[in-house]
Each structure stands twice: as structure tokens, then as C-alpha cells.
């Protein structure tokens, strides 16, 4: 393939003056075919020819960032779009506070910055890979379109990171970009970099939990990278956040609709006891205790993505001005954290205690606390849904010490309420808190595709409003037989 063969200015919506950037064009020339191959082999399975009603961002202004139309996914116009450059922007935190932001990579931070971008980039295609089988069991065309929308946008987010690697990091950047396409979620030889992105997304409940909890971690990471003193990264992440909001929406409403349907079915059948699992399941809906177990699992896996509570890397990245805190500019402090402390939950002599640590090293902990608060708000809305149906049940986030593989609590076992238990107790009771094989099989048994426009599977309620305000029976995906 040659540059002449593809007119990148129309193929790739962009606001980075792509046609005149020889360096990036040359890099894209080799990278673009690889990306398309990756999409075809690892993107949504069985629906590459379907016409999907997707939103495409063609520019960053309010009119351009959400153009809806039918498109075949491989023809989706993955663009390179950065939020507009702010005149006179200064570095908002760390030792370079107040200095003009960098438009080029500072040499001393090159390795750190490339690492941050590579890790962020690696999560984007990972979720596409994890979700590639979901189209076949979609509970409706509406939901099917939503997973595809999430997928193409994760693909675009990969593009965004690739662009940064190729534009700013020379040969190393190109190599990292190539490797982003070689790693595969769950592959023993080339796994994705972070644990949660190598877990399966076997069913739609998992998908909705994933988009609520794990994509929310992504949102928090993007929020903190959007603060970056490296301006191209900041601008890229700011625009990605506008898309990420939709993923949160898919997760939150997906779980909300599932809860709604379960509670309604229980009420219709006159079942008051939420623990009467067999009878509830017989209604073709997912019982609330199982939903809670899924929540426990996805929340705890997502907490692991924040890394160690006390982290040198996070401290370095903050101090260097590369990765800030959630809503940095709204925080009332010196934005340098030279002498500040932050409370961290730690395991001290077998007990969970709150210990003051230097705030600079507790950056991960702080971001995770903000994440938990953000999750809690969504959870309250779910509880409202349950409450409105009259079912007596509440969802809660498990304790941060529960079911952890990374950080302070990785070597202990704790119940969702934070009580530490011995290994024997944990092994015995674990399936009270986490989905069992049986639970998984039951959920799997409900995963029957519903492809008639306007119809929904038994276990999930229809949405209150359609995408792009379309009517209830709108054909979001035109499946090619």
C-alpha cells in the first residue's frame, strides 16, 4: 500500500493536519493495514458486514463529534481528534507548575511518558477483544448497536494513542504501536498488559458490569492524563472523555435495566424473598444476589487497575507534570504536594488501618477513592430503581480489601464487609460473594439473541429513550444473513 492509494484526509477525520505531516503519514502507511487486519480478526465476530447505526466523530466541535449514520464497521472512519489547543495553557501541577505546557516530549520524561501512553493504549483494543463474541447473544438490536459503538470507539481511542506514539516518540514509538496490535487479551504468549483486560467477558451482564466499573477506571485514568503538562496527550484525552461518557451510560443503564426487569418480574410473580433464587431464575431473569456477586467481582478487579496504593511511579508521574489527579484544577491545594499527606488504607499487623502517607506517593490511592465515590453515585441510582419497584434490596460496593490481587491486601482474604478471614474460610465461603460456575452457567443460559427490532430478551427491560432519539422499534443493526 502506498500513500497515494489512500487519501487519508478523507479516510481519517482529523484535526491534526494529517495530509501535511509526512512523518505520521509514513508511519500510518505501515500501521493502518495492520490495524484493519486486527479489527477484522479481533473485532466483533460475525457482524463485520452488518450495517450499524453508529455515531462517528468527524470533528471536535459540537456539530461534528456525533454524526449518526449506518456504516459497516470495517469502514468506520476512525479519526485522530484532539480537543482544541488552549492558548497560554500552563502545567497545572507538579514541579513544573505554572510553566508553559510542552508541545514536544521533554527528553527526561520520554520513557515515563511513553510508558503511560502505551499502558493506556493497551487497554483500548483489549476490551474490543474481550467483547468480540457478544454480538451473537445480544438481547436486542439496541444493545447490539451499543456494544459495537463502544467497540469502534475503543478502536478510535487506540488510534489516538497510536498517533501520539508515532508522532512524538520516533522509532521506539513505532515499535510500541506495532506491539499494541500484537498483544491479545487472554493470550498466554502475548497477553494484554493489565490483569483485568485478560479476563473474559463471557456474557452481557459481564459486559455491562465491565463498562460500568472497568471503563470507569479508564475514565479516571483519562481524567488524570487530561491534566497532563504534555499538551497533545491532554488534548487527546479530553476528547476521548466525551466518548467515554457513552460507555459509562451503556454500563449503568444496562445494569439498571437488568435490575428493573428482575424486580418487575418478581413483583408480577409475587416473590418477596430475593434469596428465593430458584423461583426468580425460573422467571427468566437474573436474581439480585447473583447480580451482587458480579458487582463484587468487577469492582474488585477494577480496583486492581489502580495499582499499588503507595506508588513511586505514580509519584514520579505527578511530580513530573505528566499525570495529575481527578479534576486537578478544582482541588484546593498547592498542586505540588511536597509536604502534604493523604490517608491510605494499609494492612498493619493483620488489621486494616488508615495511615497517613506522603500525598505524592499516594496518588493512586486518591484516584481510586475518587473512583469509588463515582461508582457509589451510580450505585445509588441502581438502588433507586430497585426501591421504586418496591423490592426490599440494596446493592453495596464491597470493601477495598475484598478479593484483591494487587496492592496492600493481595495476600489476605477479606469478606465484602472488610472482615479478614483465613484461607480455609475463604475457600469455603467464596461462592457466597463471587459468581460460581453454576451462576455463570445460568447467566449463559439466558444469553439468547433477540434480533427483531423493538424486542428484548426476557432478562432486560427496554431503554426509556432510543439512541439519537430513535423510536423503540428502530432497526439499529441491519444484519446481513
Amino acid at each position, binding site marked *: 500500500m502506498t500513500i497515494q492509494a489512500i487519501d487519508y484526509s478523507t479516510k481519517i477525520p482529523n484535526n491534526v493536519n494529517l495530509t501535511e505531516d509526512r512523518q505520521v503519514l509514513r508511519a500510518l502507511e505501515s500501521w493502518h493495514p495492520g490495524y484493519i487486519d486486527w479489527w477484522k480478526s479481533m473485532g466483533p465476530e460475525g457482524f463485520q458486514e452488518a450495517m450499524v447505526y453508529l455515531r462517528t466523530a468527524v470533528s471536535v466541535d459540537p456539530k461534528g463529534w456525533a454524526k449518526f449514520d449506518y456504516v459497516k464497521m470495517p469502514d468506520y472512519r476512525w479519526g485522530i481528534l484532539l480537543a482544541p489547543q488552549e492558548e497560554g495553557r500552563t502545567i497545572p501541577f507538579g514541579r513544573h507548575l505554572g510553566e508553559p505546557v510542552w508541545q514536544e516530549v521533554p527528553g527526561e520524561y520520554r*520513557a515515563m511518558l511513553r510508558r503511560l501512553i502505551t499502558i493506556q493504549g493497551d487497554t483500548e483494543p483489549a476490551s474490543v477483544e474481550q467483547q468480540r463474541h457478544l454480538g451473537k447473544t445480544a438481547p436486542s438490536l439496541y444493545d447490539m448497536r451499543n456494544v459495537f459503538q463502544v467497540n469502534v470507539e475503543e478502536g478510535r481511542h487506540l488510534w489516538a494513542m497510536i498517533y501520539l506514539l508515532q508522532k512524538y516518540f520516533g522509532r521506539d514509538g513505532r515499535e510500541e504501536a506495532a506491539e499494541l496490535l*500484537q498483544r491479545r487479551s487472554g493470550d498466554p504468549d502475548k497477553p494484554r*498488559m493489565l490483569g483485568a483486560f485478560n479476563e473474559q467477558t463471557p456474557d452481557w451482564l459481564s459486559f455491562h458490569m465491565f463498562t460500568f466499573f472497568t471503563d470507569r477506571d479508564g475514565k479516571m485514568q483519562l481524567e488524570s492524563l487530561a491534566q497532563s503538562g504534555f499538551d497533545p496527550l491532554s488534548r487527546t484525552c479530553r476528547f476521548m472523555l466525551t466518548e467515554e461518557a457513552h460507555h459509562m451510560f451503556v454500563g449503568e443503564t444496562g445494569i439498571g435495566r437488568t435490575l428493573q426487569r428482575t424486580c418487575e418480574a418478581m413483583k408480577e410473580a409475587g416473590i418477596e424473598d430475593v434469596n428465593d433464587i430458584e423461583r426468580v431464575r425460573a422467571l427468566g431473569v437474573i436474581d439480585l444476589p447473583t447480580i451482587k456477586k458480579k458487582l463484587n467481582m468487577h469492582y474488585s478487579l477494577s480496583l486492581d487497575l489502580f495499582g499499588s496504593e503507595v506508588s513511586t511511579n505514580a509519584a514520579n508521574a505527578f*511530580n*513530573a507534570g505528566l499525570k495529575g489527579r481527578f479534576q486537578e484544577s478544582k482541588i484546593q491545594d498547592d498542586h505540588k504536594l511536597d509536604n502534604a499527606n493523604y490517608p491510605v488504607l494499609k494492612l498493619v499487623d493483620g488489621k486494616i488501618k488508615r495511615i497517613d502517607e506522603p500525598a*505524592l506517593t499516594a496518588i493512586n490511592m486518591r484516584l481510586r477513592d475518587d473512583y469509588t465515590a463515582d461508582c457509589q453515585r451510580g450505585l445509588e441510582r441502581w438502588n433507586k430503581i430497585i426501591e421504586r419497584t418496591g423490592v426490599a434490596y440494596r446493592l453495596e460496593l464491597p470493601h477495598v480489601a475484598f478479593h484483591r490481587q494487587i496492592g496492600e491486601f493481595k495476600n489476605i482474604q477479606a469478606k465484602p464487609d472488610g472482615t479478614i478471614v483465613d484461607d480455609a474460610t475463604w475457600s469455603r465461603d467464596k461462592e457466597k460473594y463471587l459468581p460460581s460456575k453454576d451462576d455463570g452457567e445460568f447467566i449463559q443460559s439466558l444469553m439468547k439473541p433477540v434480533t427483531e427490532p423493538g424486542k428484548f430478551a426476557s432478562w432486560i427491560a427496554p431503554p426509556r429513550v432510543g439512541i439519537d432519539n430513535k423510536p423503540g422499534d428502530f432497526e439499529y443493526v441491519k444484519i446481513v444473513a
Partner: protein
Amino acid sequence: MVDTERKLANGKTRIDFQTDPSLYRHWKLAVDGDVATLAMDVDEKGGLFEGYDLKLNSYDLGVDIELADAIERLRFEHPQVKVVLLRSGKPRVFCAGANIRMLAGATHAHKVNFCKFTNETRNGIEDASEASGLRTICAINGTAAGGGYELALAADHIMLIDDGSSSVSLPELPLLAVLPGTGGLTRVTDKRRVRRDHADFFCTTEEGVKGKRAVEWRLVDEVVPGSKFEEAIRQRAQDFAAKSPRGHGAQGIALKPLKRERASDAVEYSTTSVTFQRPERLATIALRGPEGAPPANADAMLALGADFWPLRLARELDDAILDIRINELDVAAIVFKSCGDGERVLAYDAFLNANRRHWLAREIAHYWKRVLKRIDLTSRSLVTLVEPDSCFAGTLAELVLAADRSYMLIGEREADNKPPAEIALSEQNFGLYPMSNGLTRLASRFLADPAQVDAAKAEIGRKLDAETAERLGLVTFACDDIDWEDEVRVFLEERASFSPDGLTGLEANLRFGGPETMESKIFARLTAWQNWIFQRPNAIGDEGALKRYGTGQRPAFDTKRV
């Protein structure tokens, strides 16, 4: 910087180098036929000192003491083992190197002693391969950073998992503003023969090198996908075992715990007594010769096992040296003395020489070689006093040759019926115990005139009195009874009055004349460059990299190049 002492964990007051597999907290040694697996699974809470956690398989001296013990046990207790697999007991992490918080809070003396010991342990791994055919294969299943990669460098064969993220690295310079302290740079250039510009890139790149490039640049021998990793390790173990000369059904001996009694100013072993004259800043190590004749044959030696005098003495002497090095920092000089029958020492040497093809005799010779090297590398003035009733013969005569100064008494002491002091040489002094420069102590001694080595060789087995020994150049000074006390006292007092730092440098310079080897370069560069950098404000000042590591603060460097 305040060079304050850290507190040892669990209320300990000394660092003990004696351990055994039942006490290991950080390693698991498993032997399966001719392949042993030595798995590093560091207990985070098992640090030697208080104040740091050993995260991500990072290590401190306590971890390395166990490793050194395991390597010795493989040589003596498991002579049938041909290949040792050096690997991690933790998923996706190999070893993060020396624990940085430990280093940042350690005294300079501890850092130097720590690096010296870890180097000796790595050299021990290489010696096991070279001398005994015990091959080491290092299987890197995750990050191998700094000391973690240096550990791998000691192996004969390095396998790296090819998972797109696992890398080998020497990030000391970019991360901590110091150099790799366990021979990393020298092994990269001299053992792996990595091109200098590649080495330059590698050693300044915090994240290191992975995958294909790691092989192309000779940093590892092969990369293997995760799904084939275990099978490849098994296969490689077989390949190396097939080529190892070791084994053939040999039965090992147990390295049972040393007999050791400690008093405030003395340590008593079965063959060795250490006494501390603290006001004079001296430690005297007195060695006792064998109580009887050597055993009848090799089987009898095997039956004696760790009780066999040459092995018992070597182990006790090794422990005594290590103890002084790390626990007795104020000792200025180590004085070696001996008592016993030199003839019997020679008889043991002859016995070992006659059985030199027996695996145990061979291992004992190599063990003595390592103990003597450890003495050469001890940064204290080494003094050997050859007095009546001493037995500096053959192997023990190496302690005369290893000393910075040796004094031998001429004739008898007044009012003492002990016969005059004699020394004697054996075959052992002419090749079995090379120094780290690759030469025997005699060859290093007579660099100017190799004929002097031949002259000494002609005296093998003869009893040499003080004047003959002095004439042959085997001792520094021979003095009679009238001068002896004053000569020795004045010398030791003068020694204790010099700058300890100056002496450390001077002795390290003078002990290793002649050629360099990889080993001698490693220690010399450790003493010179690393220890210099370790003392500079750019590393350990309040704004230095080592001090600031982990805080998120950038170091502030004095930018002048020296």
C-alpha cells in the same frame, strides 16, 4: 548525610551467615534427579533490617545469604545435580534487584559489604559451573531489573519469556544515579560481550530491553513464548545435563551446622578461635591443625563428611571472616595464627592431591579457593604471624602468602621449649588456589621474577625455617626473639593509626598485581567507581537520587563532570 545504623529485625544484634534450607524464608530448593530448582520467592516481611518490605522479589543481604547457602549445598549435598534452574516463585516477576529502600537507609559500610558478598555469591554460581560442571539456567518469567538481571548474568544460559512486556534491565543509572553493584556492567561487556553502544543504550534505559532485541544484543540467550516456556526450560535442562561432566550417582554429604560458641570478645569453633582485642582494633584468627592422620581412603573421607578436617576448617574460617567483615567494622587488622603439626597438614594435602579426582576432594579444594579469595577481598589489613608450634604448611601457607605483611620468628623463644617455627609448601600452593586475578598467590607475589616461583616449587615438602623462608621471599620479615614483640606491636599500632579508607584502597591495589580477569575487574570497579558514586551527593545527598527515590521528587544534581 547521617550514616546511622539501621536496626536488625526481630531484635537480632549480629548478622549470621549460617542457615539451612529448613530456615529459608526466601528460596525454595528442590532436587529432582540431576536437575535442581532454586526458586526465589522473597518474603516481603522477611527483611534483615527493620524499615522496608522486600517487594517484587527484591533482596537484601539476608536473601543472598540463603542463596549462597543453597549454592554450597548443591555442591556438597547434591553432587548428582548437573543443572540448577534459577527462577522465580512469583508469577510475572523475576527479581526487582536489591531493595532500594534498604540501600537508601543502609550505612555506606553495609552497602559495600552487601555488594561484596552478593558478588562473591554470583562468582560462586559461575565457579560451580566452571569448576564442577554444575550448570545454571536462568528462566526469567517477568521483570528482571538491576540486581535481578545481574543474578541472571551469573547463569550459563538466560531464557527470557517473550510476552511483550517482560524485560531485562540495568536501570541503576537513570533511576538511582548509581551503577549496578553486582558486576552487571562488567558481565555485560566481558561475559556476554554486548557491543559497547548497545550496552550504553541498555544501561541508560530504565525499562530495559525485551523480546527479539534482547537476544540480538546478546543480553539473553533465547526468548520463549509463555505457552512454551515450561517445556523449553525442561528441554534446556536436559540439554545442559547431557553435557555436564558432573554426577554419576555420587552421594552427597550433609553440611551440618557449625559448632560455634560466641562470647563477648571471642568466638570458638572446632578448629578455629577468634579473639577480639578491641582497644587495639585487632581480631586474631587462630587455626588448629588436624588432630590425627588423614583418613585411609576416599570412602572414609566421605563417611567423615563435614567433619573431615579440611572442610570443617574451611567452613569455620569462612564464617569467621564473614562475621568480622559485617559485624566487627572497627577491626583494623586480622591477625592469622596457627598451631599444630605442619607434617599432618602436608599429609592432608597429599591425601587430597592423591584423591583429586574424587568429587568431594575436588569440591573441598574449590571451597578453599573461594575462602582464600574471600580473605583476599576483605578490606582489613591481613597479617600472618608464624611462630613456634604453628602449622602454616601447604594449604595453610596460603594465609602467609595472602597477608599484606607476614612476620616469622627466627629460632626459639626464650624460656619456651617449643621447636622453632617452620613453614612448608605443597603442590596445593602451585595452582589449586588462584586469586581473582587468575594467578596463584606465589605467582602474584613474584611478578618480577617467575624463577622465584620455581625456586619455591623446588622446596615442596621441605620444612623451611624463618631465614630460609625470608630468603625465598615467602615471608615479609624474619625476626628473632629480641625484636619480635616490638616489631609486631609497632607495626600493628601503626596500622591501626592510618586512615581506614586509605588502607582499604591501598591494600586492594597492592594485593592484586599483574593481569586482570573479569572477576578482578568486577571487584576493582566496585571498590573504585561504585563506592565513589555511592558516596557522592548526587546519589546520597538529601537531594540525591537514592535519597529521593520513591518520593516522586526529582533529584537535583551537581552538574559538574568529575
